[in-house]
């Protein structure tokens, strides 16, 4: 009834010549997951610019204090054995105190006060640099603490499952629903007084009880979302065949977690750690603004901004500078973290 015919061009079925075969072979090195991610990250202009800004800010906060001639806590008007020279207090940017002016008259070179000085005659530029350094360091170390605790608890809960998981997750639920900021303020207000006596005379005294208590608070409260995340990842990953294979060769639980499970959720871990840093910096500057941050005379961006509120009528720039630096750091870290997530989390791209 039906007739089916096909016109086939037999030329299409001639074996390929070597030349044609060579054309089809793609001569390019195989790409790894990491290389792919970096390539995607570089294409993302916003993330790249943010990364450059972070690098510049971090490097300058580390290296500028080395060659800057003023220190963050020396009051320039106060010389041993002499009356306090008030002409150094509240200098406008690029102006000089009395003795410095005399030096300039005599032909000596004096390093300029780029941002002027504060009400106690301390060079404001170096205080901002130190404040940035403190903020970045606090953000970084707090995130590391959060990472370690969250990693251990999350992977144990996820891998063990059952009652252990249930117990840990109930604790996580409760801590998660605690209003974090209020608890942070409460704990750092109280811990500071408790710690004062403990740390006096040790290295920690210089950092101040407030910062230590900030770390303690982070260690107590902020690990929960990290551990939730890692638990979720591990739960999904441990059903994979290669885990079963490892188990059948009688691998130990800690080995499986370390060798198989954690490396597979590394991108999630890195991304959420990167996004944790700005939130830690935010918390630190918030606490410093309330007067619960670093001990005076050590500056922090938050305490610089809050000090500047008193002289807001005549010295507005003293508020604007630290405020702009905090916003810049937090914004660029956030944007960079978002870029990292887009580049390294293939599941999200799906």
């Amino acid at each position, binding site marked *: 009834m039906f007739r089916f015919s096909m016109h086939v061009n037999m030329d299409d079925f001639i074996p390929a010549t070597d030349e044609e075969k060579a054309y089809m072979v793609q001569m390019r090195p195989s790409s790894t997951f990491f290389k792919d991610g970096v390539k995607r990250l570089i294409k993302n202009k916003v993330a790249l610019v943010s990364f450059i800004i972070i690098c510049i800010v971090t490097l300058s906060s580390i290296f500028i204090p080395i060659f800057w001639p003023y220190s963050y806590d020396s009051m320039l008007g106060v010389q041993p054995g002499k009356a306090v020279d008030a002409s150094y207090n509240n200098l406008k940017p690029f102006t000089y105190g009395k003795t410095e002016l005399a030096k300039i008259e005599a032909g000596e070179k004096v390093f300029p006060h780029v941002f002027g000085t504060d009400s106690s005659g301390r060079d404001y530029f170096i205080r901002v640099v130190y404040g940035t350094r403190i903020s970045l360091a606090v953000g970084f170390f707090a995130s590391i603490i959060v990472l370690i605790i969250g990693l251990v608890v999350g992977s144990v809960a996820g891998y063990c499952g059952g009652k252990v998981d249930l117990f840990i997750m109930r604790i996580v*639920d*409760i801590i998660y*629903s*605690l*209003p974090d*900021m*209020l*608890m942070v*303020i*409460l*704990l750092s*207000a*109280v811990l500071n*007084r*408790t710690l004062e*006596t403990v740390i006096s005379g040790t290295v920690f005294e210089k950092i101040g009880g407030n910062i230590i208590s900030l770390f303690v608070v982070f260690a107590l409260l902020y690990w929960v979302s990290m551990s939730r995340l890692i638990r979720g990842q591990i739960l999904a990953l441990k059903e994979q065949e290669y885990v079963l294979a490892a188990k059948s060769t009688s691998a130990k639980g800690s080995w499986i977690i370390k060798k198989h499970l954690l490396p597979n959720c590394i991108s999630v871990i890195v991304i959420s750690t990167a996004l944790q840093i*700005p939130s830690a910096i*935010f918390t630190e*500057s*918030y606490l410093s*603004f*309330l*007067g*619960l941050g670093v001990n005076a005379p050590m500056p922090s961006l*938050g305490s610089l*901004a*809050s000090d*500047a*509120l008193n002289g*807001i*009528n005549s010295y*507005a720039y003293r*508020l*604007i500078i630290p*405020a702009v630096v*905090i*916003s810049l750091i*937090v*914004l660029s870290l*956030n944007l960079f973290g978002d870029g990292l997530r887009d580049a390294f989390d293939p599941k999200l791209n799906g």
Partner: protein
Amino acid sequence: MNSKTLGYILKRVLLSILTVWVVITITFFVMHAVPGGPFLSEKAISEKAQAALEAKYGLDKPLHIQYFTYLKDIVTKFDFGPSLKQRGRNVIDIIKDGMRVSAKLGVIAAGIALAVGVVLGSVAALRRNRIIDKVIMVVTTAFVSMPSFIMGSFLLLLFAVKLRLLPANGATSGGLILPVITLSLSPMAYITRLTRSSMLDVLGQDYIRTAKAKGVPAGKIIFGHALKNSLIPVITYFGPMLAYIVTGSLVVEQIFAVPGIGRAFVNCITSRDYPLLMGTTIVLATLIVVMNLVSDILYKVVDPRINLE
């Protein structure tokens, strides 16, 4: 509402009660771990006076008895004891006074954030990838990540110090304008982004296409069909928004000298008024926990499609 929903609500309520209890317990024991106890003041007082004070406030009793008394007073009488520094006043009265101002501040800020955020978010979604959308997205990105104390300081500098348009003191008439703006900007930006993305999601749904095909006018599609559904994710933000406004009000009330509960809270940290610190922490924390609970439950009840795990 089926039994599954009821079970979920019950679970969330129990968890919230547990959380409030944990807050009270932590607050109590942390406060009593302070070296010297709450009555260690700068001025040395005689031992007799110290003992009398301790007896008056019940501090001579064992710690666990003090704890249960404190817990019982809160639960049954809503009583947080007397303030240490403001003589003759109860903590709860100070909190009530502060709340009157702060509640006004917070509610107005939340209202503005919601109204403006939803409108801007819808506009951005409907004008997707046009200039107005891009401007809204850039501005909101900046606002979302700007800490409240910086926003407050900038607004104070600009409108009160430089332009002299608005009063800087929150206790005067019209003084709440700047604090309200400060508190509302960040939640507003967040709601804008939330509304935009969920509106875009909804506009791609089949029933919107059906409505368009039927010839329903654009305005009716947006307000009758799209907006209602795209507001559901915004409900989940109620809890975090309140938490933001509460913590934000701590610094904002400080910056603008608003006589609210936030300023009372910060002041009692420096003045070491421990009963007041405990009371405000517990009240504010309870408020946040309850608001989270309400927004979670509302979210599940409003949208039956949402999966209850």
